[in-house]
């Protein structure tokens, strides 16, 4: 699903943000990317969403060769991913419903399908009954849920989140992470860049540490919440 081979990124000012990175991320993986500030984590995500083009190497994402992709095709690459931001990026003048529906309107979905799907997603992220609220009228945690709903609404193959809990209270961060785990369990690949080691330890999964533009470690840890939930669901059966 994601394939990087000897990828380097040198910014125009000469900063070498990523050095010779190679890695694969498969469908359905739950990945944390950690590392100190300035390590190149965001740069890595920017390469995946083709906000930046790699300077050297090979990158393939969802069947697109990002070194050769034509500009006109980039929007279609991005429709395969849901992007979640640290600062939520909600449109202030739109209510929760419209902010979520926005992602579907942008790709030209029919209004009836939008209605059905938005309702579904808002229930999934626990925002039922708050459809009419504006971003300014809900908490930071709820705003991030809206942002998550918008990322999910088009059923992306992967969720890409750059410090999704960076702007919200720790207690609420935990809930957001749990939501991401649930999304992952439904089969969506989840890639999260974060600074919060507590959360990473708590949730586990594949943890990639980037330092100074290089992959320092790449290991799999037990995924407590994945297992637990799966177990309880199986128990029910």
């Amino acid at each position, binding site marked *: 699903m994601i394939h990087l081979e000897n990828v380097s990124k040198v910014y125009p000012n000469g900063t070498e943000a990523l050095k010779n990175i190679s890695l694969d991320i498969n469908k359905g993986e739950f990945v944390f990317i950690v590392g100190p500030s300035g390590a190149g984590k*965001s740069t890595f*995500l*920017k390469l995946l*969403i083709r*906000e*930046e*083009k790699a300077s050297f190497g090979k990158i393939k994402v969802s069947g697109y060769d990002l070194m050769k992709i034509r*500009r*006109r095709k980039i*929007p*279609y*690459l*991005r*429709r395969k991913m849901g*992007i979640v*931001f640290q600062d939520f*990026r909600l*449109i*202030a*003048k739109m209510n929760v419903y419209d902010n979520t529906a*926005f*992602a579907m*309107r*942008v*790709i*030209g979905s*029919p*209004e009836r399908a939008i209605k059905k799907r938005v309702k579904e997603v808002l229930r999934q992220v626990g925002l039922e009954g708050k459809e009419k609220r504006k971003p300014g009228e809900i908490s930071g945690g709820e705003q991030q849920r809206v942002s998550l709903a*918008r990322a999910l609404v*088009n059923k992306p193959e992967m969720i890409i989140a*750059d410090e999704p809990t960076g702007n919200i209270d720790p207690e609420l961060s935990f809930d957001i992470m749990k939501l991401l785990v649930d999304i992952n369990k439904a089969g969506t690949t989840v890639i999260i860049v974060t600074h919060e080691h507590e959360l990473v330890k708590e949730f586990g999964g594949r943890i990639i540490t980037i330092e100074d533009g290089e992959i320092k470690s790449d290991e799999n840890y037990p995924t407590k919440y994945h297992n637990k939930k799966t177990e309880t669901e199986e128990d029910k059966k």
Partner: protein
Amino acid sequence: MKIFYLIKEGFKNIWTNRMMSLASVIVLVSCLIITGAASLISVNVTSLISKIGDDDQITVYLDYEMNDLDSIKLGQQLGRISNIDSYSFYSRDEAIQKYKEVLGNIYESMQDDGNPFGNAYKVKLKDLSKYKQTVDRIKKIKGVTSVSDRSDIANKLTKLNYFVTIVGSWVVLILALVTLFIISNTIKMTMYSRGHEISIMKSVGATNSFIRVPFIIEAMVIGLLSGVISAGVICAVYTPVRDMTSGIIGFIGESTFTVEQIMIPTFIVMSVIGLLIGIIGGYISIARYLRKEGGDILDW
């Protein structure tokens, strides 16, 4: 479905950014009114010129004392000049009649006793390039006091027209610069909300044309609205202004266009220009966000 959504978004944008929309409309309207006024003056002056300088007629004025019989005899001498194509007698009575019509109010005020005109001939030349020699020959005929061609006035008006065009172009140029400055500043002011929205649109996979459409529609509506308002203002003041000027110089009234004649073209031209300015302005202001590569989503 999609296009309705985009159009709705465009209209919503206008309302959401109503201060900026209003500012743009005001700037555009003032610009269009001045441009329109200058063009209309120019068009009317051109029409005046063509009416006055109608064909290549020259007028040969005869001695004021000369009676009608002698005047008619003089015509034969004119006929002998080879470059004269045709000539017709223009009596002093006709002249005063015409003068009354043309000058209107002014004539009333400067009226005194008697007819100030002598008899005259209207002469048409065969070859205009020999104009000078022919006029010289006419002047040598005894009893001819002066020769004037109507193109004198036409020349003056042409100069006026030139003046209007030059001054008009400068005013329009300066206004265009002011417009550009104001618009680019208003765009800068709204850049935050716009850039924010565009970065979100890009992140959810909107194509450039999709991103562009609401902004273009917004700019189009503002442009069209400005065009229609400008045309409305111009048409509203056109007749009073025309009446006023023709009150001073009578023949302006008969040789210029009426508001009915200019109304439809004015509305069409103004709307089209407004629309074009809108489309081009919208396109340019949005292009910088769309052309940007890197730093447009995560970094925004």
